[in-house]
């Protein structure tokens, strides 16, 4: 772990915000107050945070249907997101996007995306813009193990190599696309990274439940890409704690699988253990953050509940800039 105390506290806070945000939504959605399809990121926090901690607002990310974690890690406003998910006109997207379309382009967050695989080409475009600007910025495409079977993902990888775009393909392999296992749907003897490699990219692999492994790996990746070596890919082995979408009974999981991954592969628990054992932080530091985050989420929810609702006229706005 090459991080100082401040950075570690910040990383923990971000991960914890995501976890609490998602845990809260999980309960709330069951009650029926929240509309739409929601895919929760809980379990994968170390990836989003370990990646995004290296980025500035001028570095872009493009996310997926499971986008809350990426948004929060990239600095999207917690309250604005909660309001968006609530469908408020005060939401980050005025209630027009909802969970699957949260974006904050000023923060370099080019959108969650409801279309699996759609993000990678967009990231290549953002990377080409960064290349043209020549300031060493990058663009990152988050993709799941399922998304890596979509043609767009392959096209994007090839095009990034051809154009030497500073794009980074981050594959979050959580072993499932919906209810289908990675072993079935990804037709390769090996892993996703090997595929990316065959497109002529330098690749890395790391344990996505180990924050320091993610963070250290990404440091290398970013050094490589920012230096103008063209695109790169990273595969993180990770776990999702909730169902594919809220409501999924997860009958495809093995017996005890969820208990096991919660016990052994919880990135937040592991982070806490590592940093306290290594005496980098005290348990009390983290407890304090826990409390702060809990109240932050509570406040965000209260604000979302109280926030203005959109009106029928709002439907027509924001289609075009003029006309």
């Amino acid at each position, binding site marked *: 772990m090459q991080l100082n105390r401040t950075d570690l506290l910040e990383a923990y806070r971000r991960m914890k915000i995501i976890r609490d945000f998602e845990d809260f939504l999980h309960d709330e959605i069951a009650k029926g107050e929240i*509309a*739409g*399809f929601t895919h929760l990121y809980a379990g994968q926090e170390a990836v989003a945070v370990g990646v995004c901690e290296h980025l500035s607002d001028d570095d872009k990310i493009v996310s997926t249907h499971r986008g809350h974690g990426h948004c929060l890690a990239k600095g999207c406003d917690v309250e604005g997101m909660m309001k968006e998910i609530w*469908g*408020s*006109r005060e939401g980050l*997207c005025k*209630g*027009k*996007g*909802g969970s*699957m*379309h949260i974006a904050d382009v000023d923060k370099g967050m080019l959108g969650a*995306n*409801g*279309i*699996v*695989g*759609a993000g990678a080409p967009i990231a290549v475009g953002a990377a080409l813009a960064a290349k043209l600007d020549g300031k060493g910025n990058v663009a990152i495409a988050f993709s799941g193990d*399922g*998304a890596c*079977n*979509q*043609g*767009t993902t392959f096209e994007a990888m090839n095009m990034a190599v051809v154009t030497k775009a500073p794009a980074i393909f981050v594959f979050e392999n959580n072993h*499932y*696309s*919906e*209810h*289908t*296992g*990675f*072993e*079935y*749907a*990804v*037709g390769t003897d090996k892993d996703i990274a090997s595929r990316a490699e065959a497109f002529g990219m330098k690749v890395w692999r790391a344990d996505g439940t180990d924050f320091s492994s993610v963070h250290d790996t990404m440091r290398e990746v970013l050094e490589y890409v920012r230096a103008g070596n063209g695109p790169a890919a990273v595969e993180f082995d990770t776990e999702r704690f909730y169902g594919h979408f809220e409501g*999924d*009974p997860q*009958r*495809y*999981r*093995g*017996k005890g*699988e969820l208990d096991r991954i919660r016990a052994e592969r919880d990135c937040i628990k592991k982070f806490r253990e590592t940093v306290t054992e290594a005496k980098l932080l005290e348990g009390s530091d983290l407890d304090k953050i826990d409390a702060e985050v809990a109240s932050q989420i509570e406040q965000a929810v209260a604000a979302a509940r109280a926030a203005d*609702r*959109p*009106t*029928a006229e*709002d*439907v*027509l706005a924001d*289609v075009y800039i003029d006309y």
Partner: protein
Amino acid sequence: MTKMMYRDAVRNTIFQEMQRDPNVVVLGEDVVGGMGTAGGPEAIGGIWSTSGGFYEAFGPDRVIDTPISESAIVGAAGGLALSGKRPIAELMFADFIGVSLDQIWNQIAKFRYMFGGKTKCPAIIRLIYGAGYNAAAQHSQSPHAILTGMPGLKVVMPSTPADVAGMMRQAIRDDDPVIFMEHKALYGVQGEVPDDPDFVVPFGHARLTRAGQDVTILATGMMVGMAEAAADTLAEDGIGADVIDLRSTSPLDEEAILDSVEVTGRLVIVDEAPPRCSLATDLAALVANKAFASLRAPIEMVTAPHTPIPFARELESAYLPNPDKIEAAVRKALAYN
């Protein structure tokens, strides 16, 4: 007759036809569910519960669970159909025609024509479509106009369990490619379905669901129920409406439409999609060309606005047509002299 849900009419009809004809094959993402997992095949059936039990009954060569690769799914359906099979490909959301349109539009729809009529391509593409779930801009669309406009495709949009059964059976036995559109908000609707294992609803025959002399209302899918609700309210005021459920948009039952308008002279078209180059405009143009002499008022169209589909409940409700809007349109058409 057996009472069942719209979704079960989908599932049961396909299941029966698969029993009857070994050439019928289904493919799509999670149509088995649980492949490559500890839970095993069918741990969870298709996410819409329209293929439960298929894998167990017909095995992996006829119930093909695919990766997330819609172009390859539709393309494979094309290749299966050209090779003598009757594939039924499921696109989980109709919005995913975006990532597979070439195979629908430039391949499957055109094989027969490009090949000089010497082949057939009996592929079915199931599209689960429509708004009502607050699923926002990329999971709620009704792209029937795009597909209806494509020569070579047949496009059907059943609104009741019975029509689902009859039209799915027809689609499976049909030798042309069929876009089979299932409205997700209707999946839970119950209805009586004929038990006859050969019950089919031929394409190109609209269904008159309400009869009246004053106005013609055209609708499909989820819009049919709304049109009926509006008609029922109007009936209380003594206004009689023909409500016509088109059922298939290609082929289109022009006769049913023109005959009705000849009597009523007033036309209201209800369409869940945005207004431009839509099915609504298609029907309006048909009547403005072929029943002009009968028309006694401007043609009214109740459609979604020219915007993407918004997320929030209030926004989606405002976006969609509803019985009130339809009623208002009818009253407007009737007020014209």
